[in-house]
């Protein structure tokens, strides 16, 4: 066979599938709370932990978590990071973002990845490193128009 001269090429492809993922009764109620500017947790009757987001069952005890508790909208920064890169679905105008895990007062877990710090010029990185600290107190700032999802909390404001 003659020597191959052409450069190996690629074929463009895009998989697009719409989904409708059921939230179930617990997460539905949790996000209904967001519409009313409320952060709701559920309490385990066995271990007594209050978890946010609310859980249908305790991950450790496997018991249903049916007792609803409205929790504080203030908490402490456990950890944070300054997101400054893009990938598919994230365009340069969407960064930077300050992701943070927040321990809400009276709650027995951290927020994981759903909370972002803001409310000041976060493009100014020097300012970010001055203001954002592990242990800082923060408070939720809600959007005026809320739709019952994590975006209803616009950002968490540093209060001390």
């Amino acid at each position, binding site marked *: 066979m003659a020597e191959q001269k052409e450069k*190996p090429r*690629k074929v463009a*492809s895009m*998989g697009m599938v719409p*989904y409708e*993922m059921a*939230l179930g009764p617990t*997460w539905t109620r949790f*996000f209904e709370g967001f519409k009313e500017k409320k952060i709701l947790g559920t309490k385990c009757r066995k271990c007594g932990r209050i*978890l946010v*987001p609310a*859980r249908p069952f305790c*991950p*450790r005890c496997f018991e249903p978590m049916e007792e609803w508790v409205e929790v504080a909208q203030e908490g402490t920064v*456990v*950890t*944070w*990071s*300054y*997101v*400054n*890169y893009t*990938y*598919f*679905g*994230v365009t340069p105008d*969407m*960064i930077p*973002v300050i*992701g*943070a*895990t927040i321990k809400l007062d009276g709650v027995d*877990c*951290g*927020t*994981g*990845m*759903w909370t972002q710090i803001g409310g000041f010029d976060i493009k100014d*990185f020097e300012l970010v490193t001055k203001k954002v600290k*592990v*242990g800082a107190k923060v408070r939720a700032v809600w959007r005026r128009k809320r739709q019952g*999802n*994590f*975006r209803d909390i616009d950002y968490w404001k540093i209060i001390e």
Partner: protein
Amino acid sequence: MGRAVAVIGTGQTKHGRRDDLSYPDLVREAVKKVFEDAGITLKDVDGVVYGSMPSMMEGVAYNHFYFADALRVVGKPLLRTETCGSTGQSVAHTAIHWVASGMADVVLAVASEKEHEGDAQATMMTILEPFLQVVIGGAPLAFSLQSREWMGYYHIDDDKAREAASIVSVDSHNGGLANPFAHIRVQLTKEDVSTAPIITYPVRLYDVCPVSDGACAVIFASEEKAKKICKKPAWVKGMGFRGEEYFIGDSNKAVWQSTIEASKEAYKEAGITNPLKELDVAEVYNPFSYQELMFLECLGLCPPGEAPDYVIKGTFSPGGELPCDPSGGVLCTNPIGAAGLIRVAEAALQVTGKAGEHQVEGAKLALSHAMGGAEQFNGITILGSEL
């Protein structure tokens, strides 16, 4: 753990941007090499284990169907195992369990990723629950949050953590230069690392792994077969795997229980009581330099909160008490599904004296490790030169 099991061969592709090959051809490159290395033929193989990240990564679902020919699985049993970043360790463990159980004598384990074909971070965000997929950050956010949680928990000074992470990065990149399979080949200074562009602060460009294409294949065999086939097998001395609850905020990730418990189990099985002294080399899964610091503690290689001190005094550098990632680690090469199996293959190369330019002189006992999920899984496999 059942019957004794050994690695009798390894095969790695040249990792990097492999647009030159289709995905099955890439898998075949590793499979061809492992058969050559082990010196066996297809008829010797009783079964095949394969794993990768979610198939969405490269856009072909159930890619082990697509790879059936490249995996040489026609007419053989096939198992697929995947646990996100720790997939490679899970693939190895599946093969080891299969042989240890006595249900198979020789098992081919293969893992791969061809990340340049899709978008790794967009794919990884779909690992999260439906209502969290809108968050911006990808895996670098999750693991940078974890690293800073560790820094905060032990009150580790930012500058000291930065210094130690830079050393980890420089050492790994030097390792990459000595490893013919490695993707990123660049010599760096600590200053290059500490002043590089921010990705997910405190993580900067050279603190984070690349997007790589690559495949790895390892053949595991029973004691009887290994002794018959292979002059110098690498024996499985111990292994451990642990999973954790799903929501990241539910537990303290600075004292990462799944790493701690998985390594304790592996040490117990291997009869290791002082891993820092007894291990000769460790292939720690290090997609982020900061995270490696935390792993050194959780793997029991130094006291909690003291990894930066140990790294700064050179304990884990080349020539130190326990060199880590002489291959360049995940920081230089990260075809994600394969990365955990590459750690196993590298550990095997080390204890059989076949690592070439990045060989740790006289290495007899090696640890390999990988982690994955939403800060959720850790797997360990320890290999040794003696049964």
